[in-house]
């Protein structure tokens, strides 16, 4: 079996339009949660989010091409460009046939869907633009990536709500490890700041009205985010043969289904996914130093996840540094796992642990080291990055320096 290394990284999210900006924000513990400006909020109760502020699509794409690109595809393409450039790979050559492209997304082209339906129902539009369907389909982003870079191997999109990106990265990891492909471009993309989507989120009564404070007492729920992150995974042999930069290694992947409730998290499901991941990595639990938690900031998730960490790691749980970077970049749903894997790899390289922001008061039910508010200077070698999705679909990655 191949060892699987990371040779490229790209990101665009609320805390940075590229990985350099993102690394700086992670280290500074700078949260990008604030008033929403990319969509009208006059009919919303919750008016905050973690948006990709100042994003100008025209700077990245020609006007004609933008007709085909939903906001989530735009993010995916921008992140993919950065990752591909960093890897130094040119997929137009023979490597393009031995490369997979696997992206996760929760809902795909919601911006396009919402705008089109508004036109139909509110403005009584008689017809749509011709290419609404290929613009909104959940696999549009990965299709555009394959076309832009000439990637001609296996390509598809995974959907498992908030675990979509981790399922994508894990599947890509397994394909490279098994030798099915030499390279895999993977990650996730999401853009849900539309009036219809936000109204639907609001109705669930789990959005925080002020900010996201994971694991802290008085937390009031999650704050939505948007963006994309892309990782280039490559077999170690392939990467070494071409002298590629090595930014980290994916060493394990574990999945599970709660088979319990469509929204409530389950202790058992989270425990089994983390245990499966650790077993897959072949590492001892006490080798893990950092956990980039799912940490949504909801009352239920953070308690359940804390209990799961205790159960999986035993006494070692108290020695773990656990943080939720969702407090900085929001909950980017189907992109979350990718943004968080990128955050973990950037922190690993930078020799620091990113903090849990907005942590103002400990919750007795959440009793681990959550790296409150300030990043910690610390070199670490091994980390977990967890996603526990609505619908009880869980996916956990193990990453090594």
């Amino acid at each position, binding site marked *: 079996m191949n060892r699987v290394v990371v040779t490229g990284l790209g990101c665009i999210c609320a805390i940075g339009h590229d990985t350099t900006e993102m690394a700086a924000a992670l280290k500074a513990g700078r949260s990008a949660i604030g008033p929403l400006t990319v969509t009208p909020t006059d009919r919303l*109760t919750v008016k905050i989010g973690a948006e990709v502020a100042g994003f100008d699509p025209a700077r990245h794409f020609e006007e004609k091409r933008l007709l085909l690109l939903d906001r989530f595809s735009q993010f995916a393409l921008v992140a993919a460009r950065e990752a591909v450039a960093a890897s130094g790979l040119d997929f137009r050559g023979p490597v393009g046939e031995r490369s997979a492209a696997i992206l996760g997304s929760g809902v795909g082209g919601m911006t396009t869907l919402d705008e089109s339906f508004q036109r139909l129902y509110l403005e009584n539009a008689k017809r749509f633009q011709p290419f609404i369907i290929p613009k909104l389909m959940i696999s549009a982003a990965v299709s555009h990536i394959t076309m832009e870079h000439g990637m001609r191997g296996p390509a598809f999109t995974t959907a498992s709500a908030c675990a979509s990106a981790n399922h994508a990265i894990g599947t890509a990891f397994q394909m490279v490890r098994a030798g099915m492909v030499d390279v895999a471009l993977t990650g996730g993309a999401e853009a849900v700041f539309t009036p219809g989507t936000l109204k639907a989120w609001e*109705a*669930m*009564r*789990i*959005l*925080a*009205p002020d900010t996201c404070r994971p694991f802290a007492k008085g*937390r*009031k*729920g999650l704050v939505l985010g948007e963006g994309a992150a892309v990782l280039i995974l490559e077999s170690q042999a392939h990467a070494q043969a071409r002298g590629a930069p090595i930014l980290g290694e994916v060493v394990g992947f574990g999945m599970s289904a709660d088979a319990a409730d469509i*929204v*409530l998290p389950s202790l058992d499901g989270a425990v089994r996914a983390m245990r499966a991941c650790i077993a897959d990595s072949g590492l001892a639990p006490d080798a893990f130093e950092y956990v980039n938690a799912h940490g949504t900031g*909801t*009352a*239920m998730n953070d308690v359940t996840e804390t209990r799961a960490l205790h159960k999986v790691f035993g006494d070692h749980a108290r020695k773990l540094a656990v943080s939720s970077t969702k407090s900085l970049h929001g909950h980017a749903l189907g992109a979350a796992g990718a943004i968080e894997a990128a955050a973990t790899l950037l922190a690993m390289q930078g020799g620091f642990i990113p903090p849990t922001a907005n942590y103002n008061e400990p919750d007795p039910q959440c009793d681990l080291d959550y790296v409150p508010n300030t990043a910690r200077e610390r070199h670490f070698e091994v980390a977990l990055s967890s996603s526990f999705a609505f619908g009880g679909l869980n996916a956990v990655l193990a990453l090594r320096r």
Partner: protein
Amino acid sequence: MTDVEGAVLDIIAEKAKADRSSLTPQTEISTLTLDSLDIVEIIFQIEERFDISIPYNANEGADAAGAGFKTVGDVIAMVGQHIQGQQVQGQQPA
């Protein structure tokens, strides 16, 4: 029985799959078979029925007690307050 009381009892009885005649304002919510999803659904239906907005966040309590109501009567009282609040607001000059 007021309109509000009747409507709230209807909604809760339906969600809890309880006999409507067994519910009184004194019935404790915790004795009914309601999960957190049911509570969110009940609040939605009450909002729709009376055209009011109830600022309920599920994170501030996974059960009804966390939402500030212990009994069916508390829910009825809360709805009454919101209806009254909205009427007062409506009377203010624009």
